[in-house]
């Protein structure tokens, strides 16, 4: 959910853009962290852990803790709490460890 009115703050948001979460089209504001756009759209599960397949969300939101790694435009292990949203991005739930080197 987005805050529309706030007693102290005003929010400067970028342009409204479309992007894809696991293939589904959703909207966010350009330049905000991908995790913020997902959260606003109700998405809280960002990946599944590699040993026990447990759902994970973000934790620190400043790029420190690695809880929020997702696959963005094919690149795994992207910290979506600090990676900025761009129009048309394809964001996918990451399963386990991301493969750094593509298999043929």
């Amino acid at each position, binding site marked *: 959910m987005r805050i529309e009115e706030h007693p*102290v703050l005003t929010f400067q948001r970028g342009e409204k853009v479309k992007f894809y979460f696991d293939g589904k089209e959703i909207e966010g504001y350009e330049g905000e962290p991908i995790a913020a756009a997902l959260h606003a759209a109700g998405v809280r599960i960002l990946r599944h852990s590699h040993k026990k397949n447990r*759902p994970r*969300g973000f934790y620190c939101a400043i790029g420190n803790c690695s809880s929020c790694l997702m696959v963005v435009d094919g690149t795994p292990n992207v910290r979506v709490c*600090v990676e900025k949203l761009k129009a048309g991005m394809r964001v996918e739930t990451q399963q386990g460890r991301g493969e750094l080197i593509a298999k043929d």
Partner: protein
Amino acid sequence: MLKTDIAIIGAGPAGLNAAISAASMGAGVLLLDRDEFVGGQLIKQTHKFFGSREQHASTRGIDIAGLLHEKVKEYKNIELRLGATVLGYYPDGVITAEYQGRLLKIKAQRYIVATGAAEKSLPFPNNDLPGIYGAGAVQTLTNVYGVLPGQRVLMVGSGNIGLIVSYQLMQAGVEVAGIVEAAPNIGGYLVHAAKIRRAGVPVFTSHTIKEAYGDSVVQGAVIWQLDEKWQPVPGTEKDIKADVICVAVGLTPLTELLWQAGCKMKFVSQLGGHVPVRDENMMTTMPDIYVAGDVSGVEEASAAMVEGKIAGLCAAASIGCSTGEFDELRSRALSQLAELRSGPAGEKIRSGLKLLV
């Protein structure tokens, strides 16, 4: 290879002040931050600050960041690079940074590490469920990006951060189900606690979280009471429904670069964990590395700013920069720091620092 007199890692309140002070002494400064903006933790702080006028008391944290940024821009001898993540320190005194998809090599005569601190976590069953977030993270989401974390929050920890974030969440229209505090008393300042109490939020002192539960995202938690030996008391469990659990149990210094560089480190729990051994001038055991702010001990922004000034002045003086006012500026900053740490509120920090300097 980029060459500079002083490279500063981190542009939070400590790093910004270090840059301004070093530049005012005539040093060439390269100021780096991995974020796309300056200010560090300040940018999510929408409440008015404590401290003396010189440390911007009664200005909001986000506005302090803006003021310092303007000042940095006035100096032609400060080069600011944002989106630059410093990765490592090498034995030849070179650091590397990732910047715009490239690897930068930087050689400075002095480094000031002002990387701040990270939020701690807390061990309890299911603490990894989505919806369980650091309090600072929730503050970032809410205050910077205007996205609500959920509808009903359980706060764990009643220090200043737990209290302030609870209050800010209520301002933003989120219900706070309660604040859980393991100690018998509220940890934060009375002013903050009073606001919370007035709003009718229950504070469960001598309580801790037993477990969180939820089917793939958090739906609530069971809390229970602690006896005077901090042992949980079976039979005192309470079930609290919440779609967000905020963990506000303190911060720990982000010291990786200092470890890697070989600075002598010491564990001081009063300062948040492992911290660098350093002298009064904020010089570590490596003569080319200075520190300032939360990385040298978790404190607050006013102290971080003054430490930044001291580190900036002394690092610049150590490479031969000078100004007639150096002695006066340095001793004024040192006494400001002593004043900030005076009184009962500074007792924890004072006892921690005794083990270090």
